[in-house]
């Protein structure tokens, strides 16, 4: 764990630091005339993570910071984790700040509802900001039951770019002026080759609707209340893994359903040179249409990920096709390990085609970018 750990060993069980130099390039000037930032930006990001255990009590902390030369909104810090947890037999109690992951899918996680997404760090909503919480869990022989109290709500922070056609207002609005983190519960069970979870969430939806304001020429984030019943399951067979995330509930006094169903297929045909080659196909349906929490409302996602050079290089490719609007989106992510301490990362995203009716993707049409980072972790 490097020198940081050796120095901190008496006080902290683990201490890891990841420092990175970053750069980002937008291929085109933004179509949003009110946003004027350089197409090429450089920056820095850092992450420090520490943990220590006192008997049954464990402390975890993780701080994230980023600075960007061009985009003021990308200069920020976030406490990803500042948590106290304890376990006594089957019962676990935790509180503080943490990031949670619920779900099984690879493209869009419909049931991962607790945390606000950090889209400044990753547009795909997979990176999450820290969330204040308190939880009580009970471990079953093959599963776990948990209840979560989420006392605070964190609004989404948007970067200046990628832009969404208009600048996004810093003035957030809320349905019925409610701004609550919410409550949640989840029961996870597994038996043989099946694993499934049933969950519940009620509170302010993390993904806002962006309402155009004629008066201010801005998009006003509007956070609505949501009540969700959540289900996710994975079933493994000898050659395929089946995955399903399902969400139903009520928003704006209307019921909705959303589903992500897919398969994951491992391939071993190039096993001598390519490791962990997996192909995924997922279909996302969301009857909320434009109110959906992602651009997937009737979309097919096809992706692959694999490693080579003795697992030093990792590649991920994701492509989506929208059956309603024929929009197409693609992203390519790469990581290469230069040494035990150094690695490089790169990502390119592009909207291959998008009709005006597909507002989410159309807004990103001139916002395609490539980013690159050199990481030093110790």
């Amino acid at each position, binding site marked *: *764990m*490097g020198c*940081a750990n050796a120095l901190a060993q008496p006080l902290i069980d*683990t201490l*890891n*630091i*990841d420092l990175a130099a970053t750069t980002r390039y937008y291929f085109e000037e933004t179509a949003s005339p009110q946003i004027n930032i350089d197409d090429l930006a450089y920056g820095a990001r850092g992450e420090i*993570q520490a943990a220590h255990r006192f008997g049954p009590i*464990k402390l975890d902390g993780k701080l994230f910071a980023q600075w960007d030369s061009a985009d003021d909104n990308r200069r920020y810090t976030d406490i990803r984790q500042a948590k106290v*947890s304890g*376990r006594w*037999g*089957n019962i*676990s109690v935790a509180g503080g700040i*943490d*990031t*949670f*992951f619920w779900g*099984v899918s690879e493209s869009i996680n419909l049931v991962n509802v607790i945390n606000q997404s950090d889209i400044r760090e990753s547009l795909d909503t*997979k*990176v*999450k900001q820290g969330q204040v919480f308190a939880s009580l*869990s009970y*471990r079953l022989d093959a*599963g*776990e039951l948990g209840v979560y109290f989420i006392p605070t709500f964190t609004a989404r922070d948007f970067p200046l770019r990628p832009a969404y056609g208009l600048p996004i207002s810093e003035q957030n609005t809320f349905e019925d002026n409610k701004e609550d983190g919410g409550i949640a519960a989840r029961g*996870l069970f*597994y038996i*043989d*080759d099946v*694993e499934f979870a049933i969950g519940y969430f009620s509170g302010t939806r993390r993904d806002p609707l962006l309402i155009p304001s004629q008066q201010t020429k801005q998009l006003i984030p509007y956070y609505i209340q949501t009540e969700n019943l959540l289900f996710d399951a*994975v079933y*493994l*067979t*000898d*050659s395929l*893994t089946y995955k399903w995330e399902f969400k139903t509930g009520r928003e704006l006094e209307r019921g909705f359903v959303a589903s992500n169903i897919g398969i994951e297929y*491992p391939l*071993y045909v190039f*096993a001598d040179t390519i*490791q*962990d080659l997996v192909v995924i196909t997922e279909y996302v349906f969301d009857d909320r249409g434009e109110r959906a929490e992602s651009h997937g409302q009737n979309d097919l996602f096809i992706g692959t990920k694999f*490693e080579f050079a*003795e*697992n*030093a290089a990792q590649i991920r490719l994701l492509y989506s096709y929208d059956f309603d609007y024929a929009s197409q989106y693609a992203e390519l992510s790469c990581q290469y*390990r230069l040494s*035990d*301490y150094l*690695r490089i990362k790169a990502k390119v995203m592009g909207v291959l085609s998008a009709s005006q009716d597909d507002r989410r993707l159309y807004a990103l049409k001139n916002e395609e970018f490539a980013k690159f980072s050199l*990481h030093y*972790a*110790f």
Partner: protein
Amino acid sequence: MKKYNTTLAGMICGYSLCFAAVSQANTDTEQKGYAIASVVEQRDQGFTDSRAMLTMELYSKSGAKTTRKLDISVLENEIDGDKSLIKFTFPADINGTALLTHPAKSASDEQWLYLPEVSRVKRIGSRNKAGAFVGSEFSFEDMTNKDLEDYSYNYLFSQPCELIAASAAEFAGKQCDVIERFPVDKHSGYSKQELWIDNQDSKIIQIKYFDRKKSLLKVFSASGFKLYQDKYWRPDLVQMKNVQTGKATILSYQNIIFASGLTEQDFHRSALGD
């Protein structure tokens, strides 16, 4: 359907802990081969649990070295097989990445991978037996709990252990039983394995792995054996050399602890993020 957990773990908990009582061996050499494998199997029963820190060095053909560090915990389970938890501690960017395996005798192993970067526990399949474990010369299959019934056996001969160059000094004057075993699983990456076993203490000091084309693929060797709790012999150093590619992986074990009080809770799916 078992996947990677315990050649690495096996070095600290034993090579095989799912003792099966019924031999299907027929000929004299098959029965003798099975009997020797049974003794190895029984040698390690009763260890309760074990923990070890491990350094894994991956060498390319040109000699370039990559290092991984991991902690391995094993909980003995004579009915279904031992549960194991492998946690990576180095390089720093994968610190906390963990693999939990719950073996199942009559069904597929249950396996979960914990990815700390996104706080995700991912259930994974266990078909990729021949695939490399974290880019090393150990395959997932090599790291699996060995059940006696996973193989058929054949006794070959007995030879002085010192014929194995890496063990010449440590095993001078000792005699090794040499047996071969043939995987039952059609997904195995091997056609057979040839084991050299010290017939005094039942230490496995060399395994030759033959690929599906029956060519020698890899040679496993173990050295620096120490006795723990007056019963369990464990090597300090394990090497897997790929004779076809010239690459090698060396494992060195530190701080092996037995009966440290691990419980089922430490091997629960929800403990992966702890």
